C-alpha cells in the first residue's frame, strides 16, 4: 500500500487535535505556535494516521458507487457471499482489530509538508485465545518528505479474531 501524496494541512491538524481532545494551541494557533520552541504549528504525535484520507484504496471509508459494509436499509451492505472478505471489518465469524501501534519520529510534521508513504508487510504470528484463533500481522510504513528524507516510521499490528473479543486476550 502506497500513499503517493499526503498534504499536511493546518485545518486537518486542527480537526485532529479537537477529535483527540488536545487543546494545546501549538496544534491550532499559528500566532501562539510561532512564540514557542518549535516556532510554528506542528501536528500531534498520532496525526500521521490520517494519511488514510489520501489512500485511494483505504477499505474503511465508504466510496462512491461501491457497497459499504455498514448499515443502511439492512444491518450490513455486505452480501453473505463476500462476508469477511475485506480487511478491517467485523462479522460474527471474525473481526479485524488494531492491536498495537508504534511511531518513530525523525522530524516534526508541520502544515505544508507533503509526504509520501510506503507500507510493507512485517512478521505474522498466531495465538490461541479463549474465543478462538488470533492471527496477528505487522506492517511497517515509512513516511518521507518531498526530498525523500524519512519523517516518521510507523509499525502497526493488526489481529484477526474468530469471534468478537474483549481485548484482554490479545
Amino acid at each position, binding site marked *: 500500500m502506497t500513499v503517493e501524496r499526503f498534504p499536511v494541512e493546518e485545518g486537518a491538524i486542527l480537526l485532529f487535535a479537537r477529535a483527540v*481532545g488536545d487543546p*494545546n494551541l501549538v496544534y491550532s494557533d499559528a500566532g501562539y505556535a510561532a512564540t514557542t520552541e518549535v516556532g510554528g504549528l506542528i501536528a500531534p504525535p498520532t496525526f500521521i494516521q490520517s494519511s488514510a484520507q489520501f489512500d485511494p484504496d483505504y477499505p474503511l471509508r465508504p466510496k462512491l458507487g461501491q457497497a459499504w459494509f455498514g448499515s443502511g436499509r439492512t444491518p*450490513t451492505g455486505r452480501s453473505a457471499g463476500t462476508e469477511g472478505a475485506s480487511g478491517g471489518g467485523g462479522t460474527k465469524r471474525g473481526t479485524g482489530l488494531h492491536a498495537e501501534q508504534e511511531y518513530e519520529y525523525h522530524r516534526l510534521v508541520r502544515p505544508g509538508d507533503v509526504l509520501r508513504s510506503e507500507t510493507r508487510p512485517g512478521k505474522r504470528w498466531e495465538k490461541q485465545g479463549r474465543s478462538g484463533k488470533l492471527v496477528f500481522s505487522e506492517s511497517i510504513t515509512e513516511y518521507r518528505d518531498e526530498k525523500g528524507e524519512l519523517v516518521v516510521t510507523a509499525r502497526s499490528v493488526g489481529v484477526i479474531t474468530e469471534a468478537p473479543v474483549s481485548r484482554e486476550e490479545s
Partner: protein
Amino acid sequence: MALQAATTTVGDNREMSLVEDLTRTQIVQYAGASGDFNPLHTDEVYAKQVAGYPTVFAHGMLTMGMTARVLTDWVGDGRLLRYGARFIKQVWPGDTLTARAEVTAVREVDGQPVADFTVVTRNQADEAVLTGTATARLDP
C-alpha cells in the same frame, strides 16, 4: 518549557484525566478526522447486529491520540522521539479514562539527554485499556 535531564529522575510520574463519559459523537469525530470510518466504531446497528458487540467502541488510535497528551504536556512540544502503544481492552461510550506516565530511564543518545517512559491508560473500573512506552528528548 521542556523537561530537563538535571531535574528528571526515574519514577517521576504524571497523571491526567483524558475524557469523562466518552461520547459516541467523539468517536465519530475521530473517525472523521482520521479517515477510519470502520462501522465497528461509527455504526451501532452494524456493531451489535452484524459484529456481535454490545455497542460501538472507540478506535484504539483515539485512545492512543488522547493518551499522547500526558506525555506532550509534560515533556514539551515536539519532543517525542518514539511513542508506542498496545490496545489491551476496548474503550466504550460512557468510559472515563485517566492516563499515567512514568520515567523509566534518563540516558544519553549521541550526547543528547533523553528519557524513557511507560504509559498506561485506565478506565473507570481501573482496568488498563492501553499500555505503552515512549522516548523523549530532554534539555540538559
